[in-house]
Every structure is written in C-alpha cells, then in structure tokens.
C-alpha cells in the first residue's frame, strides 16, 4: 500500500501551489485515478483522512474520478473493456489488445479559499 506516500506527495504539491496563490485554505482536491493505475481509490481516501491533518487542506474534500480500463485491438482496432478488468483479448476477433485508458493518475484541480 503505497497510497499514503502518494497522497502525501499530492498534498505537498497542492499546499505549495496554494501558498503561492496566497490561499488561506484548500477546500477541495480533485484526482483522476485509473482502474489499472495500481492505486486503490479507497486506500487513497483512507490515507487522505490522516495525511491532511495539520495542512492547508485540513478541511478539504477529496473528489476522485475513477477511470475505467479501456483497450483497443491491435488487429481489428475495435475498442473494448478488458474482460474481468484485466484480459486484453479482443472479444471480436481474439487478437491482442493494448490498454488505451485506465492507467491515469492525475491531480486535475483544486479549489482554494483566499481571505478578502
């Protein structure tokens, strides 16, 4: 479970950026996490609860968009959802596929609060 070090990195980067913007607090952090990114959404949420304490994001909400895996057949070019989430055999022609989505691991945005 490497999610804690990952979320600590996210918080560090977001807090640095928020300070540059003169923020009093971070109110929301939005992430995109692919189904095949090797990172568990529930573990990220769990780690966030502990890691945000004492930071600018102490009161922030964490919004995670989970991206499903999507593959494309290298032979017939048909897009398909991998069977059981992992198998890259084309359901149309049986040819080999490659993952085209589902490995994303992004900070998409955050919302900050600046005192007037």
């Amino acid at each position, binding site marked *: 479970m490497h999610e*804690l070090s990952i979320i600590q990195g996210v918080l560090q980067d977001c807090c640095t950026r928020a300070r540059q913007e003169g923020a009093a607090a971070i*109110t929301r952090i939005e992430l995109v996490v692919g189904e095949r990114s090797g990172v568990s959404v529930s573990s990220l949420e769990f780690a966030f609860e502990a890691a945000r304490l004492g930071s600018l994001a102490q009161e922030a909400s964490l919004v995670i968009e989970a991206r499903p895996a999507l593959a494309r057949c290298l032979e017939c070019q048909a897009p398909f959802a991998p069977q059981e989430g992992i198998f890259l055999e084309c359901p149309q022609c049986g040819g080999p596929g490659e993952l085209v989505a589902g490995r994303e*691991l992004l900070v*998409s945005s955050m919302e900050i609060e600046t005192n007037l």
Partner: protein
Amino acid sequence: MCQDCGCLEVGAVTLEGVPLGSDHHSHAPLQEHDHGHGPELRRLSLFHGQGQLQEISIKQRILSRNDHLAQHNRELLQKAQVFATNWISAPGSGKTRLIERMLEDNRLGQEIFVIEGDQETSRDRDRIRAKGGQAVQINTGSACHLDAHMVHEALHQLPLKPKSFLVIENVGNMVCPTAFDLGEAFKVAVISCTEGEDKPLKYPDLITNAKVLLINKIDLLPHLDFDLEACGSFAKRINPAITVFAVSAKTGEGMEAFYAWVLSAKGAETSETKAVIQER
C-alpha cells in the same frame, strides 16, 4: 510498520548505510522547471464563508515529481550508454539468485552493476560483491518500494561504464514498486513456481507494466503441481506484448535464451536512442 501502511512516521532511507537527504538534491525544486505543461489558472468568482473561492486547474500526473526524476535518470543512463532494468517480484522468488547467476555465467559480454533495494540489511549487496559484481545497497526503512530519487543517488555511487548493464533489484513487493518509474529501459517481473500459476491474475499491474516475465525455480517442477503453461498464458492474456522465459537460477536452465533476448533488447534500445538523438 510501513509508512505506507498507516504509520505516519517517515523512516530513514539509507544508501550504503548513510541517510538519504531529500532536500539536498540539486533538482529538488522540480516544480520550478516547467516544460510547457505547467498548470493554468482559472478563476471562478464564488464566495464561501469570508473568503473567496478560486478553482485552480492543475492537470498534473500525481507522480510527476518521481516521473521527472526518473526521466532525468533515463537520460543520464542513455548518455552513459548504460542499459538499466528494474526487477520486481514478491520476496523470495529468486531475484538476487538470478542476478548472481548472470554474474556467474557472464554471457552478456559487459559488466553488470547492481542497485539492491531492501527494507533492511546489506546482505544482497554482499552476495553480489561476493560474485565479483559492483553493487550498492539502498535500505528503504519503512518504504515498500524504490523511487527515482533513491536510484538517482545510488547512480552517483556506481562507477558505471559505457555499454554496461545496470540491474535495479527492487524491494520484494509485487504491488507498490510497479507504480514508480525509476528511469529503467524496462521492468523485469519474476514469479517462482512455488507461488502458483495464478500469480499473474492476482497481480496484473506488474504483468501489465513488465516487458519480460521470468518464471523461476523450474528445477522444482517435478515436486510441484505448478502449471507452467497456464502461468505463461495468463501473463500473455493480461499483456500480449510480454515475453516469458521459464528459468532456473539454480541450474541455469533457460538462462541462455533470456541472455540472447536481453542482448537483442539492448541492441534495439541503443539503435532507438541513436535515432532519437539524430532526429534532434
């Protein structure tokens, strides 16, 4: 307890027994060098409490700091003409024994340098040195994987030579190391026969991210119910591009085919790098 398993206390990472600083690296403020994909600002006039709310679009890879340093390692290795691989498996599947076998067989024609990653002890480094290999040891303390920063520091301690090989033996763990690019040419996955043929199904992310899978300890096959063919075919169904070798680090069986493949992969990588340099 692992820092990544709930304990917030950060354990000391050491390289050759010396604590690894995180703030002395000359490229530490990585967020400072923007390569044109920097965050853009979008202002929304929302009000919340007494302050003004503002949405900031970031669109940055979560591991961008690691990825940036990994890319730096990759360029450094390419410039030094060193062919690096990142070995990932469960603990005890025989990674260190396989590297010892590579040193004993000496069939790659060039020196092999080794970066060892373990939570504690320098036992693996000592094993590599006992076989005549040059190695440095990273102890991750509480961390469950190597990252690009640790490897970067280790690179500076190895007298790397042009055309040589670098083997990075990651911490024994089939999950966490998979997410961290270290700057290698590719990842090598290892599964041993004693682990069961369904291991690729249980840990698909490693299989997805590896270029080659070594199924080790095939000398034990007569004593096991392990289905070698099924193991390879599970891996191929998850990653159709993966190359699978059945090997025994103990007897050396199957290693010749792996060496030939490594040499051709190195040749392909070198000519690709040359093409990229010429394009530039």
